[in-house]
């Protein structure tokens, strides 16, 4: 076969010149040094990474090395890393970055991560990889530092945006990239406009098998590779959900996406031990809950009281009276001209709220924390509950720190450190669950339950991840004979969610063409007229999920091939 061989002859010319000029000649030590350097930077085999042998403080796991290798050798540095939560995507990205730096292919790097992870990313790159990543604090950092870690929200704002657009990046890394699935957003537009050679998109949520998501993400990595949008959608229906039917699309996805699941990694994970804690309302609490139910039945269809807010109130009543109180206040404030009836109803409920003297769940929590006698994370959906719990625990001499998604980066880090070093309990609201690693703790109390199982996964994923050495204890609180009880039964008894390892469920759910599980729940709880109807609908949903599960198992059974997307 013919192959072009290029012999660099620039050396030749200069050599002739030096002969004529009789020098200048190099010194022998430097000559030898240059050769030694070359031996170090040589890539001895077509396959294999150089980075690991230069990283004495890091022992990457086999699947992480495999990912880095694949991205560099097969994917040309353009990839979606979609490992399940907790498999160490940061390490994979770090390895790839390091490898490219060693090969001298990458110098200028932009790393965009959620605000709460900026410090952690920079620290890991510095200590584990000896990569001098700078945290963006001032606008001139973009130009001055070669490797910058920032939050995408900061980066896309003026004046930073224009400065960043002027940089030529060798590599752009984006964490939590599932936020880029929609090409109409500012974030998408921002990333699309970055000048970049290589690009890594990190996400724990897999591509949801939607054609438009594939198109958008692939277009970020390889603009123009899929032709233009219009004709692509003409060929593949925009809203089609399954990409598996098309060989080409499947091949494409395998070319740009890697997804490891826990069971593929061969690592022994610590166990999840789940305990359902059923709690009984006190008389006053029960009255409050029942009054809401009663109102719902009475006023169905009435304006200003959407089924949504009633169901919200019910769920809140299962959490704390404070949460109910807060929502009631808001209801009044937000309604411009409250009807007589609304005011009456709210006042009626307010009285019931006031009658509640103690919180049964909180008492149980206290009892449990004392028994555990170790660090505990409490998750609640409601801020009012969060505040109440903090106050309540303090009354009983238990130190706790709050955690919310709204906290600034520095405050999040600070709270994490406070929890690690000084406090026994961390109380987090939903949004706060994302983007913080708390492996040093192994007890979770789900004070109330979200409807979306993925959110539960994310909660548990904060501590059940690489680095967790102990079995993870999960306590799910539910009040007997309430909405909560139903949810718990569905998630826990029927689909065995909690024992599943991360990601199984999202695979199952994405396979089913039935929309968001939240919406189903909402529908079931707000539109069911009787307990019986609710039960039937719940059973339907359960069997749909079970069906999807069996489909998946069947498929795995028959294929047992190891494709990275299933």
């Amino acid at each position: 076969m013919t192959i072009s061989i290029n012999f660099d002859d620039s050396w030749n010319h200069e050599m002739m010149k030096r002969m004529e000029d009789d020098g200048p000649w190099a010194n022998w030590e430097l000559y030898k040094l240059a050769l030694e350097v070359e031996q170090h930077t040589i890539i001895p085999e077509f396959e294999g990474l150089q980075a690991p042998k230069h990283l004495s403080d890091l022992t990457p796991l086999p699947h992480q090395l495999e990912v880095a290798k694949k991205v560099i050798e097969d994917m040309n540095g353009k990839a979606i890393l979609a490992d399940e939560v907790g498999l160490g995507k940061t390490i994979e990205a770090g390895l790839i970055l390091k490898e490219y730096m060693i090969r001298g292919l990458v110098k200028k790097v932009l790393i965009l991560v959620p605000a709460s992870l900026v410090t952690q990313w920079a620290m890991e790159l510095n200590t584990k990889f000896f990569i001098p990543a700078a945290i963006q604090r001032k606008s001139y950092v973009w130009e001055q530092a070669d490797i910058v870690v920032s939050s995408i929200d900061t980066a896309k704002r003026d004046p930073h945006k224009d400065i960043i657009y002027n940089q030529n990046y060798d590599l752009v890394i984006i964490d939590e990239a599932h936020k880029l699935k929609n090409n109409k957003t500012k974030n998408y537009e921002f990333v699309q406009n970055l000048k970049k050679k290589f690009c890594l998109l990190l996400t724990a949520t897999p591509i949801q098998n939607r054609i438009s998501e594939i198109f958008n993400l692939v277009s970020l990595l390889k603009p123009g590779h899929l032709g233009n949008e219009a004709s692509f959608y003409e060929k593949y229906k925009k809203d089609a959900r399954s990409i598996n039917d098309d060989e080409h699309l499947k091949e494409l996805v395998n070319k740009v996406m890697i997804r490891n699941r826990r069971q593929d990694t061969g690592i022994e994970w610590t166990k999840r031990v789940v305990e359902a804690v059923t709690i009984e309302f006190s008389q006053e609490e029960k009255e409050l809950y029942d009054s809401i139910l009663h109102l719902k039945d009475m006023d169905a269809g009435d304006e200003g009281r959407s089924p949504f807010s009633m169901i919200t109130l019910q769920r809140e009543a299962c959490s704390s009276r404070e949460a109910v109180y807060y929502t009631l206040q808001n209801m009044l404030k937000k309604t411009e001209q409250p009807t007589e009836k609304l005011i009456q109803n709210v006042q009626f409920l307010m009285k019931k709220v006031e009658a509640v003297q103690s919180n049964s769940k909180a008492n149980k929590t206290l009892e449990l924390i004392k028994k555990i006698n170790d660090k505990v994370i409490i998750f609640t959906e409601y801020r009012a509950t969060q505040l109440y719990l903090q106050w309540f625990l303090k009354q009983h001499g238990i130190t706790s720190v709050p955690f919310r998604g709204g906290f600034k980066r520095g405050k999040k880090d600070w709270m994490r450190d406070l929890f690690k070093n000084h406090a026994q309990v961390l109380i987090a609201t939903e949004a706060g669950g994302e983007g913080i690693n708390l492996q040093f703790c192994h007890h979770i109390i789900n004070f109330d339950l979200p409807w979306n199982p993925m959110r539960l996964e994310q909660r548990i994923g904060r501590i059940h991840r690489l680095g967790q050495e102990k079995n993870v204890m999960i306590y799910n609180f539910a009040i007997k004979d309430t909405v909560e009880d139903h949810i718990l039964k569905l998630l826990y008894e029927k689909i065995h969610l909690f024992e599943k390892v991360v990601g199984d469920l999202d695979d199952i759910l994405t396979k089913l063409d039935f929309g968001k599980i939240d919406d189903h729940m909402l529908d079931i709880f707000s539109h069911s007229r009787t307990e019986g109807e609710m039960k039937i609908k719940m059973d339907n949903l359960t069997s749909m999920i079970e069906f999807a599960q069996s489909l998946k198992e069947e498929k795995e059974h028959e294929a047992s091939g190891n494709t990275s997307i299933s």
Partner: protein
Amino acid sequence: MKQAEIHQFLERFFTATSCEILENKQGYLIVQLTIDLDKELMNRPFYWHYLEKTGGTPNPAKLTLITNPAIAPKDIKGELIHFGSPRLHQLFACAKKLSGYIRLYENRQGKAQEHTALKPWININMKISYQCDRKRDVFRSIGLQLINGQIVDDFQTKLEKLPLTAKIPDFAFTLSPLIMPKSGITRIENTIKQTLLAEDYTWAEEAKQRWAKDLRLLEHFYEDMEDYSESLETERLALQEQYEPKINISIINGGFFYLTSEAI
């Protein structure tokens, strides 16, 4: 290269380039650059241009390089040097740039009545890079005797065992080459190319297969599209750049060595 090796490299590099090492402690070192090295490394041509025009006192920079932040004192401010850091790459490149061409003599003194004859050799150290979507490098050091045309592989290892000096030793003389250096270089080039041609090309065949596969996939997405030529062409070129197998031979350094008959 571990951090300790990097530290050693820095010591050797700055010593070899005659820069004074002001402090050399655990985990860090501080170096006073020479004017030449400042010009090489600090990227401030305007400063030097200005200085030369105005005749001011040159003030080359000091560099503080940290090789291990864990053991370096906390109050030391400087650059973290790691394998892969741009500064280290720059120093590597600088070492190569400053050592591209050399001329050395074997240091064996003759006697007044019996002068030592030194034969001329030309040496080329090169890196052969096999490139497709993946890459592999091979280091080769070739020496060619400019009198009889003898070619010796792994020449550098042999050189490193000899006492060498930049000045011709007393009572020694050099023999004149029969082969001109220029054609010597061409002979080396041809020899290398010939061995390359005889090699196994499975790697290139495989790359071409991967290339073709990717190309088919790309073209599939452009099927039945009317107005596509430009972006399709861009994508085709991108694939070519990524996959096309080729071999690049780059020269790291080389030069003349005058050696006794016993040396090689």
